């Protein structure tokens, strides 16, 4: 059985694909939860700046799509790690790409989940899918939606677009990430 409420914030530098992660996750959650919200925060007028997005799944109406202290965070750059290590709810989990984030964290009341996302992505042949590796890992651990649903959302995202050729690679990255999380 799924619990009734999930919240996660993805954070990283523009161009790294964190907003995409949120959109795909939200899409996947739509089938399973009565209420889903997605909120991206970035500088529309500046490329390459910090961006983050929050996805909430709930069976009750979502009062606000914003949360300052999420239970889960997926971070792709060192600054985001520092920020979300601070902001995370006690008992929360922070997922980080440990290929690029060396900090290990100070808090004892949260779990830091290390994913060698960039390494894995390079291994898969394209650094650009590091985000998908992280997403797969996140879902593997938190299990808010089944990985199959996530893959279908990935398919929906890429199919029929200019970037359809990247679909399989992205799905593979999700699966590999998922495995990384399930392993331990």
């Amino acid at each position: 059985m799924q619990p009734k409420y999930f919240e996660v914030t993805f954070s990283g530098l523009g161009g790294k694909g964190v907003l995409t992660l949120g959109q795909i996750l939200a899409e996947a959650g739509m089938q399973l939860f009565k209420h889903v919200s997605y909120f991206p925060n970035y500088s529309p007028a500046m490329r390459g700046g910090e961006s983050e997005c929050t996805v909430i799944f709930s069976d009750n109406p979502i009062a606000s799509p914003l949360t300052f202290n999420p239970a889960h965070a997926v971070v792709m750059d060192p600054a985001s790690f520092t920020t979300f290590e601070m902001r995370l709810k006690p008992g929360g989990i922070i997922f980080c790409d440990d290929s690029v984030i060396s900090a290990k964290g100070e808090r004892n009341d949260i779990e830091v989940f290390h994913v060698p996302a960039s390494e894995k992505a390079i291994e898969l042949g394209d650094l650009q899918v590091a985000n998908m590796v992280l997403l797969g890992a996140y879902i593997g651990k938190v299990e808010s939606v089944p990985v199959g649903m996530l893959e279908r959302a990935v398919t929906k995202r890429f199919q029929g677009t200019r970037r359809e050729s990247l679909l399989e690679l992205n799905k593979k990255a999700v699966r590999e990430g998922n495995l990384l999380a399930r392993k331990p």
Partner: protein
Amino acid sequence: MSTSEQKKVLVCGKPELRTGFPSLYCPGCHYGIITRVICEVLEELKLGGKAIGFAGVGCSFGGAPISIGIDWASCPHGRAPAMASAAKRIHPDALVFTLQGDGDLGAIGLGCFLSAVLRNENLTTIFLNNAGYGQTGGQLAPTTLTGMKTTTTQQGRRREDGFPFHGAELAAYHKAVAYSARVTVHTPGNFKKAKRVLTTAFQKQMSGAGYSFVEFISACPSVWGMSPVDSVAYIQEHMLKEFPLGEFKNIDSIYD
């Protein structure tokens, strides 16, 4: 040939007027190359201390002031010529120029620009033609090529969206304009030509010849959805067909 000592001399570095701030532009954006053109011309003319730039809304709104170390104001969308007109009337000895995107000058600011021309203001306008709205993410600009896809002409620019806007020719058409030219920086040769053209434009202002206008064709890899290298090819193959390079007007004084 003796085996004498060798000296290492800097032949190309950061111009003095280029501040230390990293640029705000996307990778491969030609605005960065144009920044060099402007810095070097101002330095060569020793006008860095006399220049006031008025940057329009667009990618150069903050981008230009941050990277070129002269007096600047960033201007509300399309209104740089009005602000520059006032500054030039107040400081007639200063070198006053506007730096405006193709949306800024060709759409919202078209009237403001032409009215400054019609008032015989003694200004220089640097017109950045990247065939689209960079800052806002790639909408139709007056300069967008026919058939070119933008986020607001997703099937490509059609008849009812108008024909592409030709800034340099329109400027040259006006009696109050002493100098008008179109350049690019997409090859090293054109980079050099662009410097010569901008030098002439600034000189026209300082000699009171009349309005001077320089249009830069500029690659916008982000909005064009191409790599920087492909964007250079796109300029050569498509942009220059619609927008021929050259001087369209060069007279000593509009008052003769």
